[in-house]
C-alpha cells in the first residue's frame, strides 16, 4: 500500500487516489502546428527506472491534483505538492 502525504488532507492510502501519469510531460502550445511535439506529448514517455514525477488525483479526498515524487523501483515517496502550486516549466496552461 502506497501512502501519499496530501498537502491538504495529510497521509492517506493510495486507494483514495487515482493515478494521472508522468507529470513532466508538457502539452505543446495550442498554436503548435508541427507533428513532432504533439506525437511526443501524447505517446512518448521517458519511463524512468528510479525517480519519477507523477500526477495523482485525490479523488476520494480533497479532489485536488497533486504532483508526487516517487521512485518506480523502490516505491519510496518524496515531495508531494498541489499541482496548482508547482512551478510551470512549459506553455501547457497558456491560452
Amino acid at each position, binding site marked *: 500500500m502506497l501512502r501519499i502525504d496530501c498537502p491538504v488532507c495529510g497521509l492517506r492510502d493510495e486507494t483514495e487516489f487515482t493515478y494521472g*501519469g508522468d507529470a513532466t510531460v508538457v502539452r505543446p502550445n495550442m498554436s503548435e502546428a508541427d507533428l513532432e511535439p504533439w506525437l511526443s506529448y*501524447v505517446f512518448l*514517455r521517458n519511463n524512468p*527506472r528510479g525517480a519519477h514525477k507523477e500526477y495523482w488525483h485525490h479523488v476520494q479526498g480533497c479532489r485536488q491534483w497533486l504532483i508526487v515524487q516517487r521512485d518506480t523501483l523502490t516505491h519510496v515517496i518524496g515531495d508531494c505538492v498541489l499541482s496548482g502550486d508547482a512551478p510551470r516549466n512549459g506553455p501547457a496552461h497558456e491560452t
Partner: protein
Amino acid sequence: MGRYSAWSLLSNAMTRQRKWPRVWRNPAPAPRYEAIVVGGGGHGLATAYYLAKEHGIRNVAVIEKGWLGGGNTGRNTTIVRSNYMMPGNTLFYERSVRLWEDLSRELNYNVMFSQRGQYNLCHSPVQLDAARRRGNIMRANGIDAELFDRDTIRRRLPYLDYSPTARFPIQGAIYQGRAGTARHDAVAWGYARAADSLGVDIIQQCEVTGFIRDGNAVVGVETTRGPIRAAKVGLAVAGHTGQLAARAGLRLPIETHALQAFVSEPLKPMINTVISYGAAHFYISQSDKGGLVMGGDLDGYNSYAQRGGLPMVEHSLASAKALVPGLSRLRLLRHWAGVMDMSMDGSPFICKTPANGLYLNGGWCYGGFKATPASGWCFAWMLARDEPHADSANFTLDRFREGYQIDEKGVGPMPNAH
C-alpha cells in the same frame, strides 16, 4: 545432447538417472556474432531458435542478465488464446496458437500445452453483442469461436454465481476451444535446449550496459562480460525495453507497470478450463498441481518493482469470490508481480528502430506469453531478412505517428488502462 524419447527414459533409468547430459552449454561470449538477441526469456530464445532453424543463421548469441525465463516468462498466468479482432493482431496471435499446437513435438520438449478452452463471460446484452461481433471477426479469419447463452454456461461451469443476488449476472460467454494453458518454464527451457543444439550461444548472467555505435548504426553491445559485436542486435527484454532503448537514445511509447498473479493452495480438480470475468479484469484457471492460478489488473502506477501492492490483491480476490463464491475460504499460497512494457495502444512492437542494425521486440503488455512462438518466428524473420513478416507488419513504432494504433480495447493512449 540426445533427443528425449521412450528409449532415452529407459536407458537413463538403467543408469539410475545419473547420466543425463547437461541440457544446454554455458559458453563464454565470443567477440563477434552474426546476430545478438538481448533477453533470455521465451521471446529471445524463440527468436534465436527460429533464426537457426528457419533461416540457417546459427552464429547467434542470446544475452541474459539473470537466468533463463526469470522475468515475465516465469511470472505469467500461462494462458494461450487468439481471440483478437483488430487487423494486425488477429492473424499474428492465430499463428502463435498454431505454433503452440505443435510446439512440444517441434522442440522435443514437453511444454504441456493443454487446449482446455477459454470462456470470456458476458454480463449484459451489450457485452454479448460485442462478443458476437468479436466472434464473427475471429471466424472470418479462420479462428474458432463459439457464443454460449446463460443456460449453457450454467451447465458447463456450474460453480459460478448464478444467484439472483449476483452483482454482475452472467448472460453468456464467448468461448475459444483451442485456447488453453502451457507450462511457462518449459517453454523457455525447451526453446533454449533446441536453440543450443543448433549452435546458438546462450550467455547468462551477462548484462547489456550499452551499445557500440558506428555513426547511426548499432554494431554490438557493451556487457558486464566485455564488448560483443554483431551486425544485428535484437532487443527482447519486455518490461525493461524503455530503459535499454534509452541507452540507444530512443524514447518509446511505453510505460513500465507491475502486474500481479496469484496461486491458491492446491484443490482437487475443479476448474478444467480458463475463465475470464467480464465485469472486472480477472481470469482464473487451475494448474496441474491443483492450485488456482489467478490474475487481475495492473497495480496502476509506473513500477519496475517485481512485487505488487496489497490493494490489487484484495481487488483480484474480491473478483474471484464474486465469480466463484465457493472460493471464499480458500487461502492464497503465493503472489508475485512481473513488470510489463505497457504500450500506448496495448499492442506490441516487432520492428526496426531509427538506429541501423538495432531491432525491437517489446511492448507486450499482458499478452506476451501466448505470443512467444509467433513473436520469435516473426522477429527471427525480421532479423534474417531485414523486412517485417506479414503477420507482424503492423507492429511498428511509426503507427503512432501515422495514426494506425492497434487499440484492441479502445481506451486511447493510457498505458495503465490496456
